[in-house]
């Protein structure tokens, strides 16, 4: 059976939260199915805690017919995602996070936008942080006039949730960031690298990523606490001179579309 969208979900220590995450994915998958897409869920339980494994193994909300469940011992989010992408069958990949929820329209809307240009990497229009703090985060659109990539050196413009063609992830896999390396923020680095390779970050209008904010415990908080640094990206080598030219070209392309 042809699969349009593979939802990649890496799990580690989410415990019962994973249950809600999977419910939200099911909801979005049903919406996408109504829109004519076929989806699959690819779960990789990487050094998963017993409670997390329990959710994956025992939960009745998981449709075993449309789900690939794998157990892994990477201890690394980047490698886990790469592995899941490799084993997925969809034309498109939706990278999801085990703690977070997606809006019902996410998969369908992202797919619609991505059909316009194969180089697109789609992000939700907003991310809404909840739990420990409430922040409404607007993702920038690289196609918009005024987009400036130079600030990405100190701030990640986009969260890890994204949607693109499977080839995108095969061409530019996530880079591993072991704790001992001093590096971190594999998704931030990935965002930079795909830009450097000519992919375009854009948004799917009216879509949301609900992010469970945690003061401690999340990978980003842990990375910040251990003073992790993003790896060098080719994007940084040519900020200023390229930025304006590229932006002009993109704006033209967006208008044509």
């Amino acid at each position, binding site marked *: 059976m042809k699969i349009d969208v593979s939802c990649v979900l890496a799990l580690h220590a989410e415990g019962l939260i994973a249950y*809600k995450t999977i*419910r*939200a994915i099911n*909801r979005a998958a049903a919406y996408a199915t109504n829109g004519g897409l076929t989806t699959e869920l690819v779960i990789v*339980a990487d050094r*998963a805690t017993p409670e997390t*494994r329990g959710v*994956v193994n025992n939960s009745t909300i998981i449709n075993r017919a449309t789900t*690939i*469940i*794998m*157990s*892994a011992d*990477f201890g690394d989010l980047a490698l886990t995602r*790469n*592995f899941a*992408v*490799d*084993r997925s069958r969809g034309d498109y990949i939706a990278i999801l996070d085990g703690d977070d*929820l997606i809006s*019902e329209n996410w998969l369908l809307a992202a797919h619609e936008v991505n059909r316009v240009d194969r180089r697109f990497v789609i992000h939700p229009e907003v991310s*809404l942080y*909840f739990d420990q*703090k*409430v*922040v*409404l*985060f*607007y993702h*920038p659109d690289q196609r918009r006039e005024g987009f*400036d*990539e*130079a*600030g*990405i*050196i*100190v*701030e990640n413009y986009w969260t890890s949730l994204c949607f693109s063609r499977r080839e995108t992830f095969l061409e530019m*896999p*996530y*880079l*591993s960031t*072991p704790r001992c*390396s*001093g*590096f971190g923020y594999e998704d931030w680095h990935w965002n930079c690298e795909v830009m450097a390779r000519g992919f375009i970050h854009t948004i799917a209008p*009216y879509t*949301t990523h*609900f992010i469970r904010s945690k*003061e401690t415990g999340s990978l*980003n*908080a842990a990375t*910040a606490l251990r*003073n*992790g*640094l993003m790896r*060098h990206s080719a994007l940084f080598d040519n*900020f*200023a*001179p390229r930025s304006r030219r590229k932006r002009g070209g993109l704006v033209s392309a967006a208008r044509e579309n």
Partner: protein
Amino acid sequence: MLLARIKGCLSRLWASIRATFLGPSDWDEQSYLAFNPDVREAVERGELRSGLEHWHRRGRLEGRRRWAGHVWRRTLKQSEVPHWLKTEMLAISTIEPQIFPSKAFWAVAREHRPMKDSSAGYLYSQLLEEIEGKTFTHVFLLSSLRAGGVELECLRHIQTLASNFGARILVILTENTDSPWLYRLSQSVTQLDFGKKRNKVDQSSAEVVLARLLLKLKPPVIHNANSAIGWQLFCRYGAALCSESKLYASLPCFEYTNEGEPFGYARQLEKAHPYLERVFCDNHWFPAMLGEMYGIRADLFVVMAYPVSVAPRFKYTADSRQKVLWASRLDRQKRPDILQKIAQSTPECIFHVYGSGPSDKRADTAKTCDGLRKLSNVVMFGAYDGFDAIPTDNYAVFLYTAQWDGMPNVILEALASGLAVLAPNIGGISEVIPPNSGFLVPQFDDIQAYVDAVRRMTANPQLIFEERNRALRFLREKYSSDAFAASLAMLPSYTRSERLPIPNRTSESDDIKRAIKLAPQSAVILKNGQAD
């Protein structure tokens, strides 16, 4: 355009006022305490009322981290939330009740739009453009390049690496101050004035920009000579930086506050030492002290004898009225008050005093200087531009009266110039003046011991001649340029010019290959759809 600039200036001014008196607009107490465990402990002990108090008192100046990244947030009004989002929230709240779009939910909400400030990226680009695609074997981090012992030692490293080991060197000046000694760098050394440009961004952005630049350049060696931001980088990002480069540092001895608390870059060693390849010191005493204080392994330290030019232009012949030379900064470390008491107690000697006025502006130091000027046997010559600028005269001895020090360069210069030196037994001085020579005073503030020593020497000039000759022989043997170069050559990871192999670094395409290759061992696809 003008209006926008004025608006921008006012905005920055208000941000500065607010940050100074009220705290940053996005202040997050919990994050600050989480990022700074020492502050949290101080708050828990009741020594500080809050993290914000620490931020105002020290944290801002120390560049303490207060948030995971850079944020520009503003409070969000419920009316600004798009209707479609509220509708979706209501629907998904059946899965996650915390997302229910209640008034209480929005009461604490803030809005964040990234891409508000690209100045850090532009600064990074500007620095890259100035480097013009050059590659370097060594990057030196210096706060500035002005007269000073650490700077002099750093110059020795740079000169020797460039001339003896073919190093391609970049010197990054990290503070916004003048560097009058820049002319001492050879033409082959590239300079980058980061300090003059970094005021375009805040402290933590400046750290990130510099760290990113070093990651981009990937020099085999990064040597922090005396840069404060360099030490911050070594502490914070040392793990990442040392995966691409070997990290070295030079460490001068501690300074001490009025209350006697030691301070200086050596206090950063506790955090930075896991990432450091070696630390250069100019004496054995200080590493031993640090080893005892922090329990840091002894082989982290390399003691270097920085070359001095031995040119004995001072020659002593016994005189009826003996002359004593004193040349140092007139500040509380160098203890001119001790000099004053010695001069008062030895009216038979004339004291020639070189040194700029009190830099610390302390009333007691100024009073001491006035007192020195009033003494009939003291002649004050004022500031001097290096030891070589002091006119030759018939001095019996060079007198040093500091309270603390490591290996004072002025002592080495005085000895190399043909002077016998009378000094206190502090820091590493006993490594160049033997304790049994009679030229080392056991207690730095023992005035009578100084006086007795001066009288004993001047009464027996042979002691002076012998000490002078001993010191010259010692310096020629131990403090020569050849000896220094030979010491550096003993550190191949410091002197070699090729890039380091990076065993743990996986290339981009290797990552996925590794993931797939590992699959049989590391990942199991379960036919029954169960996770192990």
